[in-house]
């Protein structure tokens, strides 16, 4: 995307250091970093549907999405794999960024102080790029029969 024209240097083409974008823009790095993995993106989409999730429920939901099925049809093995990757990688990563909090005793994931910016960005994306993932994540357990 960068078209550097070799030795060409028009005035103003190179931005001086004091012309950096403000801090609020720079922090978008954190948003993109947080959303760079599909499982983290899915997790954030589910936070649009509900601000609090149990880790195991979420693992089943994500495994269902990845396997194009419903949570009840997910095998224990697949659910465990997602559960492990959430617990050991993605949830602590998002907690590091202040996007979620995690209570290890109750295994509850909840929105945290920086979640708003991320969820807003996702809502913008949802309209175009990621709508299948979003609508699956947002589909509260409506199709799930609780018995």
């Amino acid at each position, binding site marked *: 995307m960068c078209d550097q024209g070799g030795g060409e240097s028009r005035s103003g083409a190179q931005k001086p250091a004091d012309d950096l974008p403000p801090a609020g823009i720079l922090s978008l790095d954190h948003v993109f970093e947080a959303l760079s*993995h599909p499982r983290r993106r899915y997790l954030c989409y589910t936070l649009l549907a509900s601000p609090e999730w149990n880790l195991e429920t979420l693992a089943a939901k994500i495994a269902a999405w990845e396997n194009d099925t419903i949570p009840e049809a997910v095998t224990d093995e697949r659910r*465990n*794999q997602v*559960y*492990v*990757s959430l*617990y*050991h*990688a*993605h*949830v*602590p*990563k998002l907690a*590091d960024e202040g996007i979620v909090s995690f209570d*290890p005793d109750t295994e509850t994931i909840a929105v945290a102080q920086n979640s708003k910016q991320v969820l807003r960005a996702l809502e913008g994306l949802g309209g175009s790029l990621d709508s299948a993932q979003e609508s699956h994540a947002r589909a509260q357990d409506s199709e799930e029969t609780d018995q």
Partner: protein
Amino acid sequence: MSMSNDDGAEDSSPTSNRGAMLAQQHFDPRGDGDLTTTIVYTVAEADGVEPPELMDEPLYDSVDATALEATLFRNGHASGSRTGTGTLSFEYLDYVVTVGDDGWVKVYERQEGTDGAGPSGPDAPETADEPDEPGA
């Protein structure tokens, strides 16, 4: 334990804290799973527990395995030393874990008495880790 497909470059990492190898599993970057899962499953095998029960400490506290996966397997193939990255090792729980760019994840006993001796200590290799921000 001499059946190693380690190439010599790996031996520059501190091996003094490594005891016997307890478990190994192969990670396939083209498969369904991710590296985090393979590492945790291999440690669980060494530990003799089911993977979801290994919850003393998130792996993330030792290493960002998602970033490690991108570094070692960026091109989507696990084939020894084509990327030239070699093998990375870190400590997790009571183990030393190595991840090779051939996809092999190996878990070793951690020997006592070498705490903090090597560059692959328990500190995650994060970049922005400065505790003291100079006030603007």
